């Protein structure tokens, strides 16, 4: 335990050690495979949301779209496994943060890079990640984590480029 935790707010409980968190995450992922036959994901819920909202707001354009069209052929994908799962992620994270005294409303990064810059960084970062996840067919959790556990070759290619580019870009841009 380091100094800041010794003398810091005792209400804030420390994070789990990486090994314990990793074993827990591995068991959750294994359970997910056993239940659903596929792994965990996140960006897929964004795709289902975009397709579902698109079907409501611009049904013609969404049905005609080469990427979203096939997804809405049988109706709105909101209510898919992936959208329920991401709602669960929200609930689970909220419970964890609250019970450990780690819930705090803030604009993280506003102090380090300034509010306008932080807003631009997150918007641009989110855009790149969202666009990239659609190219790869998954994000860090869907392809990197779940795909690697299923021993998919593309998952390891994804992780290698994810790490290399992330390291490079974090040296050029102060994100947070």
């Amino acid at each position: 335990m380091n100094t800041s935790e010794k003398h810091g707010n005792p209400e804030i409980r420390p994070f789990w050690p990486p090994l314990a968190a990793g074993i827990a995450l591995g068991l959750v992922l294994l359970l997910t495979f056993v239940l659903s036959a596929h792994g965990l994901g996140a960006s897929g819920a964004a795709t289902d949301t975009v397709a579902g909202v698109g079907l409501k707001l611009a049904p013609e354009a969404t049905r005609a779209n080469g990427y979203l069209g096939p997804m809405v052929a049988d109706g709105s994908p909101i209510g898919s496994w992936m959208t329920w799962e991401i709602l669960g992620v929200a609930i689970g994270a909220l419970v964890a943060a609250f019970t450990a005294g780690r819930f705090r409303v803030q604009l993280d990064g506003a102090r380090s890079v300034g509010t306008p810059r932080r807003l631009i960084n997150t918007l641009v970062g989110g855009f790149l990640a969202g666009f990239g996840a659609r190219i790869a067919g998954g994000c860090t959790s869907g392809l990197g984590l779940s795909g690697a556990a299923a021993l998919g070759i593309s998952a390891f290619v994804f992780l290698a480029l994810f790490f290399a580019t992330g390291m490079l870009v974090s040296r050029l841009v102060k994100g947070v």
Partner: protein
Amino acid sequence: MFPLNDNGMLSGLLCGILFGYVLENAGFGSPVKLSAQFKLTDWAVFKVMFTAIVVAAVGLWLLRLVGLLRPDSIAVPQAALMAAAVGGALVGAGFAVGGYCPGTSVAGLFSGRLDALVFIVGVLLGTTGFAVFYGATLKSLKAAWLIADGDTFTDVYAVPEPAVLAMLGVALIAVFYFGSWFERRGSGTVTAQQAVEGAR
């Protein structure tokens, strides 16, 4: 016999709640903690991910070995290597700039971080942008360097699965060994206290 192929609401909610609970407890709601991986000062992201990969992969192998899991019943991502490389680079760049990835941004928002909400808006816009620009170029990108023989090292290169798992085990030990070495050299890992206080 597994898998149950249960893709209903309760299955999704259960897996998601556990996933979110672990993500936040690992510290992955904090962009400071997450970004520290790329600065090599806190290796929690790779330690947790590699441990989880090995635990789940060995678990799947054992379940198949004892006959509880049907062979070839689990989703494996298609070996579209160009798409994985370009997409991985973009998600890595987005992670470095924004401080989150799509899943961790949900953990960030629900531990109170409003910047994570902006990241989520960005993800939705990026997804929309992809759909708008989906045409010949993006299709050929997704189809480039596609391995037709299969999707795993076992299928394509005939590496026995236990050998793949053993290599992953070695990689896991290396991540912990070198990661901890970098952590000792640097300014220390990001504690919960520091994460809650926010980036400074």
